[in-house]
């Protein structure tokens, strides 16, 4: 595979001045296969349904080579909107390995997309795709998954805490749990895949939204019938519901998954801290730029290599590398700016950075980092 890739690159570079044969032939292939793109998977739009005025549900059939997603993962969805390729991350809200009813050989994934007022992508979405048309997908990505303890220890209670469209990855997880429960009944002996047992963990869904704006209420009712241990609480803050009461009964051993806006994630964390729930039993996925911790107003030296050219820079350590570089007039490729899409990924040759999403410090050596969520801790050598 590596040898073939290398051969492809060398041939393309020498004969056609492109990085791969695919990129040379791409415009030709697109004549026959619309939206065929190197580096991207193709998916056909099966249905397009508004769940609410501001929420769109998209069913897609990805091409066969698309890797299977795990429940809780997201994909990057790329559309050509008025000539521009635009990419955004969306959680998958269907169970892995879901099949199309009419053509069972085709896989289906469901994306639930909330329209945001300032979102150029979401507002153009419904006008630029149509049933039967094609979009591009990345491989599924993300580590927001049901942990092994949930899958293997039937006594671990599972708390799924969502706000607004944060319910989407949980729909995938609940469908997966329901499917495995029912699949396991007749075929228990063949249950080689995880979960290794019939999932019977108590499951609590704590779902905050504005009054009348809860998504998938009917589906959650059906899931509650399939999974008798599932308890769903649909909550509205304005009606007096609060996290303190919602999270009552959450044990220290409970696995808590949180999905919602950044502020919501912080509120849930505070409440869980208050009831002594250990942070290592929590996972969170939130959709907002990371909040920068206030550090001393220090500076760090950066040695930047850009297309063979070296530059020395001094960047403030209390901002992201991406912002810092841009303020110095250096344009780095970027995408989502919240650490999801990896378009701003670059090579850190040496030095330590802090990952603002996880708070973790990197190793000293060479590795790939994302500029939009990294902060300089020591002097750095970067290659753009």
């Amino acid at each position, binding site marked *: 595979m590596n040898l073939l890739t290398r051969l492809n690159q060398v041939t393309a*570079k*020498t*004969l*056609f*001045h*492109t*990085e791969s044969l695919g*990129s*040379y*032939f*791409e*415009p*030709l292939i*697109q*004549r026959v296969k619309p939206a065929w*793109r*190197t*580096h991207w998977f193709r998916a056909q739009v099966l249905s397009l349904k508004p769940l609410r005025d501001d929420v769109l549900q998209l069913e897609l059939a990805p091409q066969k080579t698309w890797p299977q997603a795990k429940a809780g993962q997201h994909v990057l969805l790329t559309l*050509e909107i*008025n*000539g*521009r*390729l*635009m990419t955004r991350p969306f959680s998958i809200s269907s169970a892995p390995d879901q099949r199309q009813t009419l053509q069972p050989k085709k896989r289906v994934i469901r994306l639930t997309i909330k329209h945001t007022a300032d979102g150029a992508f979401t507002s153009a979405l419904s006008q630029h795709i149509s049933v039967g048309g094609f979009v591009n997908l990345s491989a599924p990505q993300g580590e927001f998954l049901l942990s092994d303890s949930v899958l293997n220890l039937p006594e671990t209670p599972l708390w799924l805490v969502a706000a607004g469209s944060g319910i989407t990855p949980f729909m995938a997880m609940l469908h997966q749990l329901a499917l495995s429960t029912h699949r396991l009944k007749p075929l228990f002996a063949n249950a080689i895949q995880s979960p290794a047992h019939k999932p019977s963990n108590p499951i609590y869904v704590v779902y905050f939204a504005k009054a009348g704006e809860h998504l998938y209420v009917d589906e959650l009712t059906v899931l509650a019938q399939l999974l008798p241990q599932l308890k769903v609480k649909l909550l509205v803050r304005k009606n007096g519901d609060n996290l303190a009461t919602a999270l009552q009964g959450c044990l220290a051993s409970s696995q808590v998954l949180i999905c919602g806006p950044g502020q919501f994630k912080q509120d849930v964390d505070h409440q869980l801290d208050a009831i002594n729930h250990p942070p290592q039993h929590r996972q969170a996925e939130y959709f907002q730029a990371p909040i920068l911790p206030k550090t001393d107003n220090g500076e760090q030296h950066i040695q930047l290599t850009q*297309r*063979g*050219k070296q530059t020395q820079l001094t960047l403030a350590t209390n901002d992201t590398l991406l912002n810092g570089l841009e303020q110095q007039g250096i344009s780095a*490729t970027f995408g989502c700016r919240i650490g999801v899409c990896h378009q701003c990924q670059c090579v850190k040759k040496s030095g330590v950075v802090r990952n603002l999403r996880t708070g973790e410090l990197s190793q000293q050596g060479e590795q790939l980092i994302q500029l939009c969520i990294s902060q300089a801790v020591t002097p750095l050598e970067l290659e753009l």
Partner: protein
Amino acid sequence: MNKNINFDLLANELDDLKRQTLKDVGAIDAAYIRNVIVWQRGLEWGGRALLMLGFIHPLWWVVGVLSLASAKILDNMEIGHNVLHGQYDWMNDPHINSRQFDWDIACDGKSWQRIHNYEHHTYTNVIGKDRDFGYGLLRLSNDFSWRLKNLWQFITYIYLSVLFQWGISYHELAAERVFMGKKKQGRASKVNASELKRRFFSKGGKQLFKDYLVFPLLAGPLFLWVISGNLIANLLRNLWTSTIIFCGHFTSDVHTFSQAECENETQGQWYYRQALGSSNILGGKLFHILTGHLSFQIEHHLFPDLPSSRYQQVAPQVQAIFARHGIAYHTGPFLRQYSQVVKRILRYSLP
């Protein structure tokens, strides 16, 4: 600089025109450039295949040469030049953008981009700053003192046209600095000399390797048909690009500027200099595409990163703005513009 022109108003009007035009840029323009690429691929492969049919009837070979030459012209002009200017970067396409793109000529795309987009487009026709005025080879105005070598500069010009891709490659590297160690004051190179040399040889070598070794060898016994076809296709492309580019900058009306004139230049004055430093060529739609829309050299110099698919549309509006401000808009049919270029080269051969 002409003091009777309201430069601020001129700048506002041209800025407005650019803004209005960019607002409409979208799916049509993306489809346009992809379509040109599809044609380029078709002509290239059609051409390479037809070259080999020369042994059946030489006419096939002739058609093949023309087809391959057209592909190379499209790649160089409408696709390469414009994509490297960043005109299609807004598409966010991983392959059709100024960071990724390289073209089918001896000059490394990155080196060209660095020098051409910066030096030539910022300092158009400023003597001493824009090395593209005469390429350091030709004396094209009285701004340069006469030297003996100018006597035979028409022959130099013919050589330059024939070897244009190598001329560009050498020139954009600022090779006289890299190879001969000549230094010019106040001009710091962002890329070191060894890197520039490496790029010069690596890209040039690849070009020779593919057109004069790989493709001919792939043709086996039809080696000679292919190698000669490639040679002539490259030659035709060189002559075409050189001719078009000379018509864009060296017709009789084109002005030059001194460095002093351009100090503390406002946006309006910059536009004015671009207008007088360039000239257009009249022609049909196909002609414009084959020139990479450099037949709209004035519009290209005013708005270098406006997608080429829009130059035909903005041209009448640019002309109207110039007319209102009393600025000359230099344009004419190809033969008239080209004869002016020839006259200019000959005129300044003599003191």
